[in-house]
């Protein structure tokens, strides 16, 4: 029984990262009807950004100067903002020019952009092809709870995810710019006619999505202690898959989709005999199943084509 609980915790944490990535996909799809295939790479970029900032802080002596509970949030926040800006920059440079072009263009362009991001990261780090050691920024202690081992860093990761996702919902629900985002995702043309600055709204969407993605990257790094330049490819595909399973364009769907994928993978590894090498296969089969039988995802609405 304890083992099942332990596996549940594993699944939950994996699901959290997928959710954070998937939210980005959903935000972008809502705002621009665009799937930003390099989003996974932007997320991992967030982790690398943290790595760089940590190195800088170490050089400046900030690591020892500031107490951990001040330094770590500050570090993560800076990395989030920087990654958000990079995401916005990508939108401006690579995605916006294709706004009125066939879908194929932006699709291939973002896949290629992902490649560029990955390779740039690889080439700019010494031994960039190898995994980079991620600083242990979270406390490493753990405690037992009824036979289940609970680690403090897992709790922090889980708590941060929930906190950030609820903050994002509040932002979208309660603020003016959040209302603009909702309006644009409902109907871009109508929103433009109502005087909403589309470009700015889209930029904000990418800022939020990429910043949340950065958190996903940082969590992956903190959880595994390493990051590798090409994690973004799989992360992106999985995040997009989670978004599709939950319902592309529906931000709540990201949570459900992320958790489903997390659970499928964890339990395939844990309970299917000989299943460990095939976890990704199971995850993808679930996605393909959804695409065939419920293409709009769990929470997505059926879209009628405009003719």
């Amino acid at each position: 029984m304890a083992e099942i609980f332990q596996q549940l915790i594993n699944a939950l944490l994996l699901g959290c990262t997928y959710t954070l990535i998937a939210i980005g996909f959903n935000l972008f799809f809502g705002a621009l009807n665009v799937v930003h295939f390099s989003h996974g790479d932007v997320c991992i970029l967030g982790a690398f950004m943290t790595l760089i900032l940590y190195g800088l802080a170490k050089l400046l002596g900030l690591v020892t100067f500031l107490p951990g509970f001040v330094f770590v949030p500050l570090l993560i926040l800076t990395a989030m903002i920087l990654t958000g800006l990079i995401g916005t920059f990508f939108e401006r440079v690579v995605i916006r020019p294709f706004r009125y072009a066939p879908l194929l263009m932006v699709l291939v362009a973002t896949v290629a952009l992902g490649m560029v991001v990955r390779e740039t990261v690889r080439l700019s780090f010494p031994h960039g092809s190898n995994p980079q050691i991620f600083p242990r920024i979270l406390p490493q202690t753990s405690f037992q709870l009824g036979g289940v081992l609970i680690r403090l860093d897992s709790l922090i990761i889980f708590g941060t995810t929930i906190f950030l996702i609820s903050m994002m919902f509040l932002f979208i629900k309660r603020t003016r710019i959040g209302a603009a985002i909702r309006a644009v995702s409902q109907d871009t043309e109508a929103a433009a006619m109502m005087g909403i600055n589309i470009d700015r709204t889209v930029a904000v969407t990418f800022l939020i999505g990429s910043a949340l993605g950065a958190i996903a990257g940082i969590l992956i790094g903190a959880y595994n202690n390493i990051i590798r330049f090409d994690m973004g490819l799989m992360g992106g595909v999985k995040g997009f898959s989670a978004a599709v399973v939950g319902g592309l364009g529906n931000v709540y769907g990201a949570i459900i989709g992320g958790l489903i994928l997390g659970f499928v993978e964890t339990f395939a590894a844990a309970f299917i005999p000989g299943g460990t090498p095939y976890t990704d296969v199971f995850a993808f089969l679930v996605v393909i199943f959804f695409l065939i039988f419920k293409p709009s995802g769990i929470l997505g609405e059926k879209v009628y084509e405009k003719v």
Partner: protein
Amino acid sequence: MKFLYRKMVLFLLLAVSILLITSNGWAQSKVVKIGFIGPLTGPNAAQGVGARNAFDLAIREANASGKYPYKVEMVALDDASDPATGVAAALKLVSDPAVVAASGHWNSPVALATIHIFHTYKIPFIVWGAIHPDITGFYKYPGVNRVAPTLIQENGPLCDWVIGELGYKNFSIISDTSSYGEMNLKAFRPMAEGKGAKILSVDSVTVGTTDFRPILTKVKGLNPDAVYFGGVVMKGALIRDQMEKVGLKKLFFAISGIKDDKFLEVAGPSGEGVVTIKPGKPIDKLEGGTKFLKAYEGAGYREPFGAYGPNAYDSAGIILETISKTGPEDKGAMAKYIRGIKYKGLMGETSFDATGQTTNLMVSRFVGQGGKWITWEESDYAKGARKLPQ
């Protein structure tokens, strides 16, 4: 006006390029080239670059010694751990008439794809890193030799040690789905079972996985004595680290794939008490080891020579000795000489059996202690001051 300007630029461009193309390059003196292929880019670049540096060092030393009537040059090519790229690189080497011999590969799939080319073109080839048994044992090409022991040759002493001497009996195996992991699994399992051990579980993990908690949680439920890992540095370190995190406090052991300082760096405190073996003696205990270390440092390479540096260094040494004895012209004689060589190098005395496999099988035992790999005999664990996890 603008048109004229454009035309002029164009004309200039054409003229310059014609000049450049027809210019005769640099004056060339008589050179003998020795090929090196390895993963200089890609995920295994650290291994490949280190080996290349060591290889280069041997050649530099040979040129400096003045024993050769011509300049020896290294042609280092990248296989990027990819068989297709490796094949192109091998073909590039055999197409160059100045290349007389070559050494290559850390990845077994790449070596398995390229040795046929060296065999076809009769270029003597020494494998410095790839450990798949078939490379020598199956093909038995007369011109292909290997200075690295195969997996099977490494797993044997490890089994003897962990099962026979340390007395662990119930194992869980985790291997990755790389060629290396797969072969380890195949070699270790029957060997361990033959020695009376029990295998409780076998899990393969795809290359690229970083979260092993589901598997380790499952393994924890089976309560093995020890976890055998078939794979290399990074993944090993991650698994070791996550074993601690899920509370699986058991012995972790593997063959030389994890014996790298990076392993202890990534694994952090959990690297304590990890047990592994490595062919050859530790570098500082080797005859000429300190000399090599000093020379390597003096040559100013940016990267460490890594786990396979000595192998590459000795491969270069073997090739160099051969061409000094047989001359660089007759490839058949070279191959014959290499097969019969008794080469005293960095790793001790290397000679090859009928399949081209090295007979130099000495292994050393290591244990992680205080963030360093310490030979077992000198460690606190052997002395009883520290205890391996039970």
